[in-house]
């Protein structure tokens, strides 16, 4: 038997226990996955879990692309857009902080992204788990997330690791996808409807992983590749079907992915300087007033705007991608801030979302 099976058994057992434990208090499981990772990191070599965590991240980005692609912008109302605009102020502020911290433009852009982007995946999961989907603030929050994901994808394509040639490859590939969708989208859609679920599942998996490999070879982020595949699939009218087909596989991969994030965070955070902590606190706080203001502009009450600002606290997938990129390119400050943000903001955000309504009512 392959050694990875043992590691898989231990990891899933502990993840399941962790999720069951927090479930008793109606608490979402993502924070528990990170915690299990933190504890398990010392004993378990997470390398042996591969490729499931890597695939988990790709599938996560794929489903974020499916749900939060730019085509959603057309369905958003103007008031949600205005909230997105206020939220986006965090990006230039973050870049400025980067320059003040002595980073060059690339590092500053990465830090700006890290400070700006909240996690669509985590927040959607929290909204579903805590049954807040019908609340007015959820609509605004989800619209803001569409906005963020689009801006960050553009930023990630701009701040890539490779040369000018690889950038051309990525843009060329994007153009090809766009053309395919424009010219053959209708025909493809009809063909795909005839295929069996199993075939669509396999083709989807092949598309995501192959595009990821291509992007990686070109020096671009493979996670962006998965996101773009999701957007493409949504354009082909496969949104519901793929969401249904990939859902459970993705959830398993994502649980293991967050476990490895927790496990590798320890070594990364061994040498945290005061500067990192300052930037981290700034990143955590900067978005609260901006999102409160944005939600107010979008027509929510003071109470609901407070909730909206709290909902947007959790950071996740994009921060980890930006952080990994920053580490690779020699900006340890940005990488550490990103990981620290994810580790702290997910449990903190879950707590805030869970208890905010009762706290707010009591203070009145």
């Amino acid at each position: 038997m392959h050694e990875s099976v043992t590691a898989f058994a231990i990891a899933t057992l502990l993840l399941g226990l962790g999720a069951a434990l927090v479930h008793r208090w109606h608490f979402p499981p993502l924070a528990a996955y990170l915690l299990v990772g933190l504890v398990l990191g010392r004993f378990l070599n997470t390398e042996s879990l591969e490729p499931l965590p890597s695939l988990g991240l790709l599938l996560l980005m794929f489903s974020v692309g499916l749900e939060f692609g730019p085509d959603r912008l057309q369905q958003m109302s103007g008031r949600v857009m205005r909230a997105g605009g206020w939220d986006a102020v965090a990006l230039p502020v973050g870049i400025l902080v980067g320059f003040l911290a002595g980073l060059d433009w690339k590092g500053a852009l990465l830090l700006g992204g890290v400070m700006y982007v909240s996690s669509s995946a985590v927040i959607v999961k929290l909204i579903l788990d805590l049954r807040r989907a019908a609340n007015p603030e959820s609509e605004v929050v989800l619209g803001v997330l569409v906005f963020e994901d689009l801006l960050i994808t553009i930023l990630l394509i701009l701040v890539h690791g490779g040369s000018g040639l690889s950038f051309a490859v990525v843009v060329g590939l994007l153009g090809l996808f766009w053309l395919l969708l424009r010219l053959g989208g209708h025909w493809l859609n009809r063909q795909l409807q005839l295929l069996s679920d199993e075939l669509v599942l396999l083709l989807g998996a092949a598309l995501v992983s192959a595009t990821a490999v291509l992007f990686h070879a070109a020096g671009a982020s493979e996670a962006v590749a998965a996101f773009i595949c999701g957007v493409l699939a949504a354009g082909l009218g496969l949104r519901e079907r793929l969401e249904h087909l990939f859902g459970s596989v993705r959830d398993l991969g994502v649980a293991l992915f967050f476990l490895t994030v927790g496990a590798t965070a320890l070594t990364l955070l061994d040498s945290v300087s005061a500067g990192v902590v300052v930037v981290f606190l700034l990143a955590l706080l900067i978005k609260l007033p901006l999102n409160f203001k944005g939600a107010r502009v979008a027509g929510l009450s003071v109470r609901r705007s407070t909730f909206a600002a709290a909902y947007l606290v959790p950071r996740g997938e994009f921060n980890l991608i930006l952080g990994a990129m920053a580490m690779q390119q020699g900006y340890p400050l940005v990488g550490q801030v990103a990981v620290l943000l994810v580790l702290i903001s997910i449990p903190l955000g879950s707590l805030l979302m869970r208890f905010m309504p009762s706290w707010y009512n009591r203070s009145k």
Partner: protein
Amino acid sequence: MRVEESVLPGVGRKFMVTVRSGDRLVIVIHHSGSRELHYYERGNMDEPTAVLDLTDEEARELGAILAGVLFTPEAVGDTQTKLAQDTIEWVRLGPGAPCVGRTVKELQEQGAHLLAVLREGQALIPNPPPELSLTVGDTLVLAGPRGAVERLRKQMIG
């Protein structure tokens, strides 16, 4: 009645229904098929008075009850419910009706829909499958624009 529809990325779709009394019902249809119903009383739009979770099947059954498929209140009239341009009609198949013995698939009329089939001694058949064969005594529930429903009714009972 005012209905506002909005998309919730990653979650599904939301419908906000405000009725004449000022009360509001917020319906969320999840990608998973389950429905969430939140009822807000007039004057208190901040906190729902009641919340109800439904599975896909329960929601469809509830929808059929609301549409009057199972029972038509007398105030509305015996066989027709008027919805501005559209109509819902109940048609009972007597012996000798032309469509007896034919399948649902064969009953095609642009714009008109067959919502359900009521068959004596059986559970309601909502969204009848195309291969369902019609028999004497069935009551069919049709909906759509008045003209189209009328034409479909003619096809069925001549």
